[in-house]
């Protein structure tokens, strides 16, 4: 059973006016059929302007389709009176961690969502503590966000969504503005949420190394879905990935080159460890 399903989703800006100056790239969608199962960890990759961000904003009704349908847990996102139901089921984390924190104290910020939903005070307290612990930021609950690192701020933003107890979290390039350490913190936090709490995760990114552990990778370009499959299936097509302005891990690239020049390799490696194991078997 699909938790999120888009049917022939199309989106374009009606007029120049609507095209907010802040996203000058024309992100349009052109007949996207995308679905996510409950508990799944899906990565959507594509270069800037491929439409992946626009897709993410349709999953919790921030944008509404100009053609086709989006269903969240069976509800059409165009049903206006279900808007907040949809947003509490699917939380969206944005790219810039600085611009999505509302309050000057970490725990107050995390409480913002449940407060808006009218949750009882004791229950908010419980959810805030739980959410902060889940992203490993509990000890920073009384800090001011502007003094934290990018990775920490982004984890607070995730906790803010978690406190609404959603079924699914969509992250729109959450690591694009972070340093490697921040990236790792954020990716391991969301991987843990998926594995331990069964939360459905949709990760939008162009950093291929972040997608190695997910269940399914979806490749987008020009507002369409080009290909999907397990990370191994997708990354094995080195030429295809390259052609669509994306990266493959160096480990995969090296072995694909060796494969092309005649070395027999059954399973292309995705990370350094797999590559070392494979090549030491071949070379030693």
């Amino acid at each position, binding site marked *: 059973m699909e938790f999120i399903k888009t049917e022939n989703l199309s989106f374009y800006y009606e007029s120049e006016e609507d095209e907010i100056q802040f996203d000058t790239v024309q992100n349009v969608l052109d007949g996207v059929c995308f679905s996510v199962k409950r508990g799944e960890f899906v990565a959507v990759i594509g270069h800037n302007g491929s439409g992946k961000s626009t897709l993410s904003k349709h999953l919790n009704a921030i944008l509404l389709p100009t053609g086709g349908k989006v269903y969240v847990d069976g509800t059409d996102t165009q049903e206006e009176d279900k808007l907040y139901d949809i947003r509490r089921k699917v939380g969206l984390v944005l790219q810039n961690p600085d611009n999505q924190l509302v309050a000057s104290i970490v725990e*107050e910020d995390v409480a913002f*969502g449940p407060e808006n939903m009218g949750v009882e005070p004791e229950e908010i307290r419980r959810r805030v503590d739980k959410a902060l612990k889940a992203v490993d930021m509990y000890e920073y609950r009384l800090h001011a966000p502007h003094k934290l690192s990018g990775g920490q701020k982004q984890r607070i933003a995730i906790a*803010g969504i978690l406190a609404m107890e959603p079924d699914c979290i969509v992250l729109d390039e959450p690591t694009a503005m972070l340093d490697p350490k921040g990236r790792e913190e954020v990716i391991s936090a969301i991987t843990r949420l998926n594995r331990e709490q069964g939360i459905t995760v949709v990760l939008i990114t162009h950093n291929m190394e972040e997608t190695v552990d997910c269940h399914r990778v979806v490749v987008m370009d020009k507002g369409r879905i080009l290909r999907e499959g397990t990370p191994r299936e997708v990354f094995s097509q080195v030429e295809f990935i390259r052609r669509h302005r994306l990266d493959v891990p160096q480990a995969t690239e090296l072995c694909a080159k060796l494969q092309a020049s005649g070395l027999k390799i059954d399973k292309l490696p995705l990370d350094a460890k797999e590559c070392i194991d494979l090549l030491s078997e071949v070379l030693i």
Partner: protein
Amino acid sequence: MIRDITLGQYFPGNGILHRLDPRVKVLMLISVIVLIFCTFNFFALSVVVALVAASVIMSKVPLKLYLKSMKAIIIVILITSLLNLFYGTGEAIAQWWIFKITQAGIRNAVFVAVRIISLVMVSSVLTFTTSPTDLTDALERLMKPLGIFKVKTHEIAMMMTIALRFVPTLLEETDKIMSAQKARGADMESGNLIKRIKALVPILIPLFVSAFRRAYDLAMAMECRCYQGGKGRTRMKQLRMHGRDFAAVAVVAAVLAGVILCNIFL
């Protein structure tokens, strides 16, 4: 650097003033401000000064920080005191050209200086001991009765919260933009007034652009978190009055009475 401004910055702590109900603190501040301007003789003034000094000590915030916030307005104090010094009526003690100093003038100058200093000190006590969120929270709740006059109290409080949250971020950004323009040879330190104002353009435009972009992002983030105005909203932190809050109110009330008595009888 711009980032070093301390006026109106929270200093985390666990003293008695930190733990007071923020609503009580705001009301106390208002009554002390009224008090400061209702003191007409030295006795009443010294009672107020004693109260302000006591609250500064009880705040357990380093005196250095108070002095730092004082530094920003020292010129205001000097100018107003000087004006008062020369505008007294009565017999001149000293005179030079059109300036004359009278006893009343000296008295006014001292009063004004002490009043402004007390005002800044006592306001700093509030902002040092109360987190910005507590402060806006208290204001929102205190303003609630204004709701019957169609004043959008929740929206005002929300705007204050967001402003407080983004002040440090934008200050940091200003710093960065200034450095970046300096790296391209922008000269902000020399030239006449017009030239200096012109030199601000390369800083202000990027700053506004960035502020709008942030506002756009933030609005979206708030929508993602089901924000729909004040209706049906609950709060995680409930404000409850404790014994210490009533005690604080009592102390301020006593001082208020004392000052009124001083004003009448002395």
